[in-house]
């Protein structure tokens, strides 16, 4: 199953002009636990999807919010010449297709 089929919200956003942050949220504890227990969501998997060093990936499990979070430095600072997503809102797409066994 794909992460997008289990999560009820996958989103990305700036966390300030220099950081991108990604939230993966669920409707219920069972869905959250299913993804957590699969072990498929982890900094190494994220680093592979976003082609960045794993040391730059921060990962948080937030059970009381039924959510996971990743944060990475922005490849281009918000608004820098060449940046095409001022709010960082459309950077979550690669996470959608992550296979959850």
């Amino acid at each position: 199953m794909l992460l997008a089929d289990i999560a009820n919200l996958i989103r990305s956003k700036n966390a300030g002009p220099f950081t991108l942050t990604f939230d993966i949220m669920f409707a219920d504890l069972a869905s959250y636990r299913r993804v957590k227990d699969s072990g498929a969501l982890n900094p190494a998997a994220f680093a592979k999807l976003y082609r960045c060093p794993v040391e730059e990936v921060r990962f948080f499990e937030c059970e009381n919010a039924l959510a996971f979070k990743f944060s990475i430095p922005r490849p281009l600072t918000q608004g820098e010449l060449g940046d095409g997503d001022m709010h960082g809102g459309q950077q979550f797409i690669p996470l959608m297709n992550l296979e959850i066994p």
Partner: protein
Amino acid sequence: MATDKFQQIRFISPVGSVGGGISSAALEEALAQAPHFIACDAGTTDAGPFSLGMGIAAFPREAVKRDLSLMLRAGRKANIPVIIGSAGTAGGDAHVDWVLEIAREIVTEHHLTLRTAVIYAEQDKAYLKRLLQQNRILPLDPAPPISGSVIDSSSRIVGMMGVEPLQQAILQGADFVLAGRCSDSALFAAIPLMQGFPPGLAWHAGKVSECGTLVCETLGQGVIFTTIRRDEITIRPYGDGLRCTPQSVAAHSLYENSDPYLHRECSGAFDLTNSTFEAIDDVTVRIRGSEFISEPYTVKLEGAALAGYQSIIVGGIRDPHVIGQLDSWLAGVSSYIDESVSHVLGDHADKSSYSIDFHIYGINAVMGCLEPDPKHLPHEIGIVLEATAPTQDLAHKLAQLSRQPLLHYPIKEWAGSITAFACLHNPAVIDRGPVYRFTLNHVAVPSTPVEMFRTHFIDLCGSEKSCS
């Protein structure tokens, strides 16, 4: 200020940003619950560096005036202070003065009398360079390099104030605190901290309240009403169909934050690792267990510098032969543009002084280097060509000189003259004016929490009765 013998303190967060559109009915309803103050954030870097660099606000003046008017009138009606922070989007001096002018109009139109504390947050460059020499400007992670010339070349630098300048203003009797760049949470934590409420709860209450109804399960028209007691926070919305749930309140700590648990402020960090969230009723959530860790005092800096002036051309390509060899075709177009610029403008346009960027919609314009599937070719692509140069005149000419090669640069599949680019407009070139970039992700270490901020008291008087 009476706070029920200091057992609890109540406040309203009427909207996530001044100008966002306050629900006046919900504000009235919340006002009947006897709040001790109203606070509202007016700023963000979310839209980009332009507001800070240019000194203008992101919201229309009419929208800011409507919301500010509702808040100031509510504050006077209930005889409670109104605190506005990060005025005019970026919280520079020009932004604060812009909102102050609006407040003057409101006071006159509604015959209000307001003891107003205006707190400026823009930073003196000589002061910052002194701090830099003393190693009292420290990088956050990640941070661009800093030097005296980065400070000098920034159009505007603001410091993000904590609770202390706000508290001074309240202690001196301000009915209306109009602050420049300010921590969002500090706007709500200032008065509870003055009253001795636990810092973990005071800061967390500010954090969950500052975005207005974004903390609710679904976004809608309403206001947030928050109560802090000695050992808990309760938060609820007023507004049709709105509810706070344990998950929605817990999840709000994630939004636009790189770390969902640790939230850094001037005087330390509040830590939500042990926070608990429970439903009291269908719309109200109780929070307990939030903690605060004191740290050496720092003030976050934000700066923006002019990156140049920009002109753009918008259009598209449908020809599969061109789309099939887009990278090499664009490389050819770029070289042709550079040659034209060199021939026509010569010494007026050194290659290192300008840049031509292509945003290729349909390929990787949105995700850039993060795009996982850049090899997938669509049947149509959109192109935005951005020419950026030290003057608008030069940017305009660069874009003008880009049009011909974009239109006619040949491919071997077609004999003779082609027109490969579908221009959207005539004139094809759109001047965008100045563009800015962020220059700082640093904190300053001041000697005192208030030395970077300047407070002026003004008695705003909207009636014939004197303000003496």
